[in-house]
């Protein structure tokens, strides 16, 4: 993909689980490098499914989904890891590993990329400081509050300075002040060229970021 190309390109994408009804219908979406979009919609509208499709946990049941110019339907298994490394994902349920410390959880994407602790420790500690978790670096996730877990999940998503951030309700569990701080972190990365798609119910967050919103309703995507 050329650096100026589309980061996300969905063409008439539909998604269904097994033989169930279509969760997403004829979704068309194009996001370029440095774009910032908020994904809104009622619970069950398909926000999380759309994000799952974009972070390559699902494949579309019809239509074309292109990520960094690559059609995800035609990707070889061996190509998936390198493409996924360009993504930073904040899962709705955080998906932190309870047997690892917060430091190790946040550093996990770097470790999975083959980096050594000496190379990433400083950056990870800086990032933990930014999200207010430096003092909890050696603690396990099960000792953290929901908001702290969310901050750790965001730190893990951005630690690789990804090309695309996909976040499912990234500030849902934190207080407004921390929400603003986390948004600033994401916006800073966005200013540096990272494409961002955030699923949220938080209207205030959208206003603060002066971002454009996309509205999902019964599986169909509309500009809000």
């Amino acid at each position, binding site marked *: 993909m050329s650096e100026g190309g589309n980061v996300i390109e969905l063409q008439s994408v539909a998604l269904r689980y097994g033989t169930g009804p279509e969760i997403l219908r004829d979704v068309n979406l194009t996001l370029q490098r440095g774009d910032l979009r908020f994904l809104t919609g009622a619970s069950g509208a398909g926000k999380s499914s759309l994000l799952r499709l974009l972070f390559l*946990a699902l494949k579309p049941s019809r239509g074309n989904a292109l990520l960094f110019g690559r059609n995800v339907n035609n990707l070889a*298994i061996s190509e998936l890891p390198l493409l*996924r490394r360009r993504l930073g994902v904040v899962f709705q349920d955080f*998906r932190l*590993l309870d047997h690892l410390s917060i430091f190790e959880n946040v550093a996990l994407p770097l470790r999975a990329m083959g980096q050594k602790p000496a190379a990433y420790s400083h950056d990870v500690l800086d990032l933990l400081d930014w999200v207010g978790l430096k*003092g909890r670096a050696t603690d396990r996730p099960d000792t953290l509050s929901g908001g702290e877990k969310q901050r750790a999940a965001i730190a893990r998503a951005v630690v690789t300075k990804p090309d695309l951030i996909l976040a499912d309700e990234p500030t849902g569990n934190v207080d407004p002040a921390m929400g603003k701080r986390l948004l600033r972190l994401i916006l800073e990365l966005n200013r540096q060229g990272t494409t961002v798609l955030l699923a949220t119910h938080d209207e205030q967050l959208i206003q603060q970021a002066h971002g454009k919103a996309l509205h999902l309703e019964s599986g169909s995507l509309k500009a809000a």
Partner: protein
Amino acid sequence: MLDPALEKPSPVFPHGAAPLRSLTITMAVMCYLACLAIGALVLINQAASAWTQGISREVTVQIRQRSGADMEQELAQALTILKAAPGVVAAEALDKSAGAKLLEPWLGKVPLDELPVPRLIRVTINETSPPDYKALEKQLAKQVPDASLDTHRRWQAELSRMAHALSLLAVFVLGLISLASVMLVVFAARAVLESNRGTVEVLALMGAQNKFISRQNDRQFLATGLIAGFAGLIAGLITFAGLFYLGGSSTDAMAEAGRSLVFAPAAVELRVGAALVLVPIAATLIALWTSRITLSRMLRSMP
């Protein structure tokens, strides 16, 4: 606060998870049982070989009492023939009371003069070049008509058959234990992998390559397999040592065989040692192989 940057990274897959503990215990117990079965096999073989060796080292000549015959002269004649025969190392006539002692379990204490108790000659033979029994029997029958030669072959054959049957039984038990171990380890390894599914998914979604995930998985199963396998082996060796001490200084064949597990001849010890060391290694390889197959299926099932 500890400096997380200075700490050794924790294993990506949790080492203390409950299914992993179950796998460790299962593997340790199965390895212990396999070691015991191998030990039993060696013990039976050693005991059988000690019994048959004792029997084949000696033969007996029996001289029946006959009215009018001079027993002492017949004894002397038989001894002369036996001592002159090639392959005979020694021949020794047992006194009258020795024959009566042999009858004691059936007849109780009996006055020796009232019963025609046969006289016995214990003949020690050269095992590597035994005498020609047929020729010896013929010669004895010709010159000492009341003598008969007992080569113990019937007993030896029966003992060998019994030892062979026991060995087969031990091999069968070892086979069953191995099969059960393989099945249990396979199921337990799958359970461990299933409990790690969430971690595998997170790693895959972060862009970890399959070989990175496999390497982490291998480390987990290698450590578990070796710890459990050698724990089973050590428990087995402690049991053998216990057998040795319980056998004490007894000279019977079973105690001798028990001791031979601990202080066997170098060649036997090497074979037994190799078989025992193979147990934890085989168990580890089975766990590793199963986990790799399960992990590879899991990774293939992910989008």
